[in-house]
Structure formats: C-alpha cells, structure tokens
C-alpha cells in the first residue's frame, strides 16, 4: 500500500469519559485546522487508554510510536499545529507542554499487566479488522474445536472468579449450566455497572466491544446456550450504541448467528437496556427485569444456573469475567493463572476514582496494595490534602483507613479485614470527608435503591438513616452510645437477615466508617442510655 507521506494518523478517544471533557470538540477542531492548513489528517476514534486525568488524550502516530498530548482543549489545536506536534517526522522533537512522550512508555501504562484490556485505547473499537489484527477471535477459533467440557475445564483451571464482586468461580457456574439438560439455555451479561467508582465495564463496552461478544459466544458454545442478553444500564448510552453497532458487524461477518464461523453451532445475542434501578445489578433481580418485571430479588435456590432466565439454565456473568475468557481460551488457562496470588488468580482492572490526581484504569495482577494504587499510580489526592479514607468495591464496600493501605488486594485478604475487593473500584477521599455523613449516605442510598422484598433492607435502611441523623445531631457533645449500639444491632440484623447483597452489605461501609473513624461520630462517649 502506498503511504501518503503527508497523511498523518491521529487518535482521539471516543470513550464517554473523554467525550465528557471535550474529546468530540477536540476531534472537530483537529479536522478543521488540518483542512485550513491543507494537511491530510486521518482521525481514528480509539477507546481510552485509561489515563483519564489526561483526557482528552490526543495521540499522533510516528515511526517510533504514538506520541501523546493531554489534556487537550480545542484552543490548543492551533498552537499544536504551529509547534509541529502534528508531524510524523522521526527527527521532530516534540516541544509542546502537553506532550507526554511515547504513550506506551508512560509509567502509568508501562507498569500494568493488561490482559483483559490489552486492546483498549489502542484499536478502533468498531473495526473488526483491527480486533482480529490484535489477536481477536483467536479464543473463539480454539474453542470451536473443543468440547463444551474442555472449554469449561480451561475456564475453571484459569482460576477466573466472578469480577462483578461476588468472586464466585466462573468455571463452576458454567459447569452447572453445562450439566443441566434443557432445550434452551441462556448467556446473560450483567452490564449494570452501578457501583460508584467503577467504570471498567463501560470502558470495555465502549473501547473493545468485540472482546465481550467473543466471550459471550465462547460461553454459549461451552454450555450449549444459543442466545444471549447483554443487560446494560441506561446511564451508559454510548456503550449501548457501540455494542449494538459491534453486534450487527459480528453478525454480518458470521461471528454470530445460526452457524458461528461455519461450525454448525448457533449463538446470537441482543442488548437490553435497564431503567435506572441499582438493584438490577443483583443477578436475580436482573433476570426479573429482563423478563419485563419489577427488578425484585428472587430467593435462591434455585440458582440461576439451574432455573434462570424464563426458568431456563442461565450463565450470568459480569462484563469483565466474560471479557477475560477470550484471552484464556487463546493463551491457555496456565497463562492467566500465573498472574495473581493465593486463590485470586489473573488480573483485575482497578479503577482509581474520586479525589485522586491521576484517576484512571490500572489492570494489574492481584496482590498489589492500595498504597501502590493510590500513590504510585494515582499520584495522591487531587486536592493535595492527605488521603483519609478509601472506599473499595463500590457503595457496599468498606471504607479503608490509612493503617490498612498495605493489605494486599486479594479477595481473601480483604475478607480478612472485613472489606471486599468487589469490582475493583476505589474511591479516595481527602481529609475534608465527614465519615458520619458517608455512613448516612450509604443507608440513604440503600433506602432509595432497595427493591423492597425483604424487611431488613427495606425498613432497616430507613431506620439506619434516622439513627445516623440522631448520632450526627448529638456528636458535638460526644458520642451517643445508645444510638451507636442501636446502629450496630441494626447492621447486624441487615447483614444476617437480608435476601441479597444490597441490604446484606450496606453494613460494611457503615460499620467500617464507625470502627475506623469513630471521631466523626462524636469523640468521647457521652452517656450510656
């Protein structure tokens, strides 16, 4: 192919986080400025690299690699052309202040172990050719020559555990569905990523949708399910658009349909859009919602693997779990299992959010520490004040104080400190945070989002808000011991008596706040009764 020496390839992310800070306007500005100057610039809309504090991150392709600039505003484009930033001349030394050098060499990216996110930010999310050129669909090709049992064995041996938060071994779930005879089985992808501080699912769906489609297809081939549903929250309109476009491309090219790649096996899927209910991230509630009902939690058993969607055996997995399957089936179970520690195998895309200088996505093997993530990657707080508390694992995760920043991020180690790794999201707070207020918010959120089926969650959360209001009102005079005791009792009831993780885990943020930050609940014990 003849290379037009004048043509320059420039990458501007189409990830919604980048768009939220002006990426579309930057892309337009580049196109306008280039045409004004008679320059040929091909703009590729890639996914985000995950260095979100640098968004919009513009990358210019040069013979030595992609050079990054960020965060770029439309006003920077003219000066960037003037300073020669938009040049693929290997002799050119970038002088622009926004220049971060070779993107792949940036320590934030270089020191990651990107398996699930291998392509995100590098490829055009809606280019099937790009996907295939970067090892896409190798896992499916391998799977098509294997029996269902062999695929399930590979996934089990990889040690992959549910990345949605519950960390249940994925292979065991699949095995149950495989061994449950039925004329119709389903694959359901839980893309109702409602936890604050998490955006890995969204970044995969917007940045590499084919990997998720491939993962679901492999799951379908493995357990004998011919149809899949991708349940995406309505708060993710960009992800919904990208997925729909990718699904129709995959269908057109024979990767979905009645005869997947000529194998004689059928698998197809569709996107279903949620309607703003946090509880629908709970798997049984999600199934109810897919069936067109109120998202009310089901009692278990029966397990969804035996009686799931429309009463049929159903694999229901999180986005990251399913998106990790293609690389396992491509490179083998051992390759994936060799990352990680203890019983937490493989990698987890950690999401650095809240009050951090360098928020973004860091995929690393299990076993690194919160301190590493917060300071080595996150660069400390955005406000410059000390980091006081970090909520790990979403709104139902515990608040971690600095004294526990060195506990390795591993499912079991976190359970050991009454916390959870969950979906790998972490939200940092500086020392201006009021932990009693955060505890109250956790209860308030639970009251707003409770499905109402079980009493501890439905009523307990409202009573929790009231008790915390009393504690907050009294704290200037010291801790209201009677109310604190009541709160602990209430949390105990919710923990033990709720039907699902919403009511059952909201005590984690509440109790961790009161245990680790008692000073925010009134310093001295005021009275006994």
């Amino acid at each position: 192919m003849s290379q037009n020496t004048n043509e320059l390839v420039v990458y501007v992310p189409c990830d919604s986080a980048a768009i939220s800070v002006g990426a579309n306007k930057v892309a337009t500005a580049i196109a306008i400025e280039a045409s004004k100057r008679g320059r040929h610039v091909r703009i590729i809309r890639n996914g985000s690299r995950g260095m979100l504090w640098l968004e919009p991150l513009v990358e210019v392709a040069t013979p030595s690699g992609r050079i990054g600039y960020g965060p770029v505003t439309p006003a920077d484009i003219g000066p960037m052309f003037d300073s020669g930033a938009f040049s693929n001349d290997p002799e050119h030394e970038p002088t622009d202040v926004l220049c971060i050098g070779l993107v792949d060499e940036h320590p934030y990216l270089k020191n990651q172990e990107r398996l699930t996110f291998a392509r995100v930010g590098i490829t055009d999310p809606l280019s099937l050719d790009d996907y295939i050129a970067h090892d896409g669909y190798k896992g499916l090709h391998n799977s098509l020559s294997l029996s269902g049992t062999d695929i399930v064995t590979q996934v089990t041996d990889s040690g992959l555990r549910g990345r949605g938060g519950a960390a249940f071994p994925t292979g065991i779930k699949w095995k149950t569905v495989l061994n449950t005879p039925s004329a119709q089985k389903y694959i359901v992808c839980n893309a109702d990523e409602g936890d604050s501080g998490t955006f890995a699912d969204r970044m995969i769906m917007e940045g590499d949708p084919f990997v998720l489609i491939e993962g679901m297809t492999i799951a379908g081939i493995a357990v004998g399910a011919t149809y899949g549903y991708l349940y995406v929250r309505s708060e993710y309109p960009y992800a919904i658009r990208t997925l729909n476009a990718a699904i129709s491309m995959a269908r057109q090219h024979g990767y979905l349909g009645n005869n997947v790649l000529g194998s004689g096996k059928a698998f197809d899927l569709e996107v279903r859009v949620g309607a703003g209910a946090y509880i629908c991230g709970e798997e049984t509630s999600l199934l109810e919602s897919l069936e067109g009902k109120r998202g009310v939690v089901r009692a278990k058993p029966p397990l969804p693997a035996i009686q799931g969607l429309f009463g049929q055996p159903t694999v229901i997995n999180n986005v990251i779990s399913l998106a990790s399957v293609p690389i396992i089936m491509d490179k083998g179970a051992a390759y994936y299992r060799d990352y990680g520690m203890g019983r937490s195998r493989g990698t987890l895309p950690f999401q650095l959010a809240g009050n951090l200088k360098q928020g973004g996505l860091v995929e690393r093997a299990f076993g690194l520490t919160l301190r590493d993530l917060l300071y080595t990657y996150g660069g400390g707080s955005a406000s410059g004040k000390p980091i006081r508390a970090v909520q790990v694992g979403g709104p139902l995760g515990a608040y971690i104080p600095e004294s526990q920043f060195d506990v390795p991020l591993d499912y079991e180690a976190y359970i050991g400190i009454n916390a959870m790794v969950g979906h790998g999201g972490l939200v940092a707070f500086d020392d201006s945070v009021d932990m009693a207020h955060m505890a109250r918010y956790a209860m308030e959120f639970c009251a707003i989002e409770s499905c109402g089926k079980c009493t501890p969650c439905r009523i307990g959360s409202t009573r929790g808000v009231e008790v915390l209001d009393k504690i907050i009102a009294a704290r200037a005079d010291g801790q209201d011991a009677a109310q604190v005791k009541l709160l602990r009792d209430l949390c105990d009831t919710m923990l033990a008596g709720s039907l699902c993780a919403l009511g059952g885990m909201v005590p984690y943020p509440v109790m961790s706040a009161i245990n680790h930050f008692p000073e925010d609940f009134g310093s001295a014990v005021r009275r006994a009764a």
Partner: protein
Amino acid sequence: MNPIKNEFALTFVPNRRAQIRPAPGVQAAVDGALARYHGVRGALLPVLHAVQEQLGYVPEDAVNVIAKALNLSRAEVHGVITFYHDFREQPAGKHVIKMCRAEACQAMGAEHLIAHAERVLGVKLGETSADGSVTLEAIYCLGNCACSPAALVNGELVGRITPDRFDDVVSGLYALGHHNEVAA
C-alpha cells in the same frame, strides 16, 4: 336459581381508568412501540423505553393499551413504571440535568455543586422549573468516576464540572434553545 344475591355483580362498574381511550398521539406512540417489539419475550421494558422516547413520559392512558397488548394487568405495568427511576409519569422539563451524587463525585465536591445548581436554576433536586424549561434530578453513578463531578445534560455526559463550567453549560442550553448541545 341461585338464592344468594350477588350485589357486586349488580353494582359493578368497570374502573374508569380501564376505559380511558388514549389520545391519538399516545395511541400512535404505543402502537409503534408494540409493533417494534412484537413477539419479543419480556418486552415490557423495551416498550416503555420506546414510548418514553417518543413522548417524553409514559402517560396514564398508555398503560391500559400496553397491558392489554402484552397480556398483563394494569397493576403489573404500573408497578414496573413506578419501580424504575427512568420512567416518568409526567413530562419532564425541556432540558433535563441529572447530577451525580454517588461517592466518587461526592469526593470531588458534588454536594456543593448540586447546591450551586439548585441556586442557579431555582429548583431543588427532583423538581421541574415553573416555566417547564428545566428538570433537575439526582443520578447515582454515570461511570465517569475519574472525571468527577459528573452530570448528564440532555443525555450528554459532562465531566470535571466546576460551578463555572456548570454555568457555561446552562447558559449554552438557554442560548441555543435546543437539545443535544452541551457547552463543554
């Protein structure tokens, strides 16, 4: 002959709401949505989304038609509409601003920003301005947690919002007077 007098049968009057004939626009939107999802299993949510996309809300007179078509009771349809935060029973304002108040945004000052928004717009969270120009709502996580605080403005995601940037977005909306334009 039945000696027991069935008073209920004599006095039963079908519920007024069950007999409401939808306005023509509503009927057309519902028919379109039902046709689009004909034969789809678990079609209620997609149908409600489609109706709301057309009309901006799910009017009361749509409920009966949807229920009949999907072989559900009106209570079931009403239950679903009221369960999910997305579905509206009343039209929203011309512009809809949904401010995230989840933890990551709180860590970056969302509460102050929301107070600022309430002052600027003259409405509280959950309210629509008297002139119908704007609805301000809370939302819980937009997945933009590394660019907090975030909001959804007429369906467009906006990140790293400062009070100044919020004012720019709002003045952009009022100046342009149409949807889908966000001053970023």
